[in-house]
């Protein structure tokens, strides 16, 4: 479903991605691990359509469609979803209004009918309860005054509502305590399905105890330097990234 070929990207002349090849098939969970500055977050932003980067080479296709031709909103409508590492606070925009606008915008883009307010409310209440997102949080402006854990839970709630076909989780475990990590992981696991692919970006192996990947990649200096099964994560946890960081130096 997702095919990234020889992707090179830079920002203000600094080369950040130097030839990424990655294929994600429906139902697969790919973990991308790597040290700070290896390009993990950049990859997630580029996939989602952030415009700050210059793509100098390569391609991203999703279900046969050239993603580099599409804006962020069109990619979302095509089924991609990025759970942000740092979800943004937007004062003045009520969470509920935002969720409804986003859901209906995607439905409209796909030629589906808008969801009625009662149907929407019912849907949100159900999904919010699973993730322990309180009605009080939903009444607040988007992410404003949310704790780190609340923000991550709200991200997963958005994901559960929008039902993307490709979920990209950018360091969703950062800033989470053990209980929050469990709630968030359960929310993510509930979305696992044979039709849905996931890319889980993380520094640490602990998230992968909860969300068990099919494939683990090591990203270093803008390239995937090693690919293996879930045991690769354990090896990294034991030995660190030193072996891989050195290779490209």
């Amino acid at each position, binding site marked *: 479903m997702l095919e990234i070929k020889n992707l090179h990207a830079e920002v203000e002349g600094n080369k950040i991605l130097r030839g990424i090849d990655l294929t994600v098939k429906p139902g697969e969970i790919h973990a991308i691990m790597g040290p700070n500055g290896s390009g993990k977050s950049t990859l997630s932003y580029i996939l989602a*359509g952030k415009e700050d980067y210059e793509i100098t080479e390569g391609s991203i296709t999703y279900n046969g469609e050239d993603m580099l031709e599409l804006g*962020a*909103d069109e990619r979302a409508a095509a089924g991609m979803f990025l759970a942000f590492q740092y979800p943004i606070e937007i*004062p*003045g*925009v009520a969470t509920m209004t*935002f969720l409804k*606008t*986003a859901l209906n915008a*995607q439905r409209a883009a796909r030629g589906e009918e808008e969801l009625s307010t009662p149907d929407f409310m019912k849907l949100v209440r159900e999904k919010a309860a699973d993730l322990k997102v309180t009605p009080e949080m939903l009444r607040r402006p988007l992410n404003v005054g949310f704790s780190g854990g609340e923000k991550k839970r709200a991200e997963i709630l958005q994901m559960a509502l929008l039902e993307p076909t490709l979920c990209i989780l950018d360091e969703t475990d950062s800033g989470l305590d053990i209980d929050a990590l469990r709630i968030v992981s359960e929310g993510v696991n509930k979305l696992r399905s044979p039709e849905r692919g996931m890319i889980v970006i993380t520094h640490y192996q602990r998230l992968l105890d909860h969300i068990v990947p099919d494939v683990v990649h090591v990203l270093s200096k803008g390239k995937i330097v090693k690919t293996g099964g879930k045991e690769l994560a354990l090896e990294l946890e034991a030995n660190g990234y030193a072996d891989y960081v050195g290779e490209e130096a």
Partner: protein
Amino acid sequence: MTAQNQRVLSAAETGFEEAFAATHGKQSDGLGEARRAAMARFEATGLPHRRIEEYHYTDLKAKLRSAFALSAKAEIVAPGAVGEVETQGRLVFVNGRFDAALSNVEALAGKISVSAWAEEMGAEKAEVQAHGAAAFPRADALVDLNTAFVQGGATITVAGGEKLEKALEIVHVAKGEGASFSRIDLVVEAGADVLVLESYQGDSGAYLRNTLTTLEVGDNAKLTWVKLQEEAESATHLASATANLGKGAELSQFLLDAGSGLSRSQFAVAFNGEGSNAALRGVSLLKGDSHADITLSVDHKVPECNSREYFKAIVDDKARSVFQGQILVKPDAQKTDGQMMVQSLLLSESAEVNVKPELEIFADDVQCAHGSTTGEIDEDLLFYLRARGIPEKEARKILILAFLGEVIDELDDERVGPLLTSRISNWLHV
């Protein structure tokens, strides 16, 4: 060389002088005297230009290029709808003149008295006339022009202790071209509480409107004054207003500055009694090559009063937003709290914002602060909304509405909040 005598009259200045000579110049009643005195002041100063400090960013001599004839008396079928606000009385002015047929003031009997007048007024209005000119705290050419040419107006008095839930509506309509001059004197007597919803609208003509509003808010009285400036794009809107607050009085003002290619809204507030609050707020929506100037001055004469100024502007295309806010704290005005905040969002590289806060503090136990921000739509916020599938255009509107919504939230008046939100929303969707 005597530079003073070298002053070259602009076409607009000559136009005003000639119009005056042809109409009011010869009247011999008391009213004519007030008019002539005002015109004499105007002839001495001319239209304000950029070397006059208060008009530095809004050079009216340069901006008013052509002469305006005085507006003619006109009839309309009905003014445009102001919106979904419950009202309990309506005053309609067409080209500056009170239109009794379109107005409805009977229902106000006993609570609000209205004494409206048109230009055929007699000498008994000389006193009213003199009051208008004297009310503004500084010599000002726009006020002088209003006094010289005023075509109609009303004195509105809200009886002491009357608490009126529904809005009193004042609609000003312009029809055709020409210059209209009107005056509103509003007195809110002690302990009364009233919401005044004022709307300025016009057809597509290149008309000029000059208004003077004087507000008296009595002891423990409350006035909520919401003004919708939605003039035609080619219009010029020149509005002067003053407010005098008694003891424990409350003034809550909101200006929606959304029309006319050139506007100047000047408002001078004075605290005359202790323990009063004045909150001046507004939203400017500017595009094309429109120029909107909001100039405020707050005079803290007495102790323990709070003033708050909170304005936001959206400036697109080549439009220009000017904000000048003066807070004067006189030596007696201890325990004053004066806060000013101006925030602007630029939607184009050619848009311009000029902000001039001016704090003059002569008392030592006061809290005063001013702040100003000017920026563009935050790309990170935009990306976040787009990443959730909201198209860029829609996402921008959401962010602009959120930005402006904070001022409406602070006004915190559920009678007019939805109206203001829907007006802004409509403007954004054009």
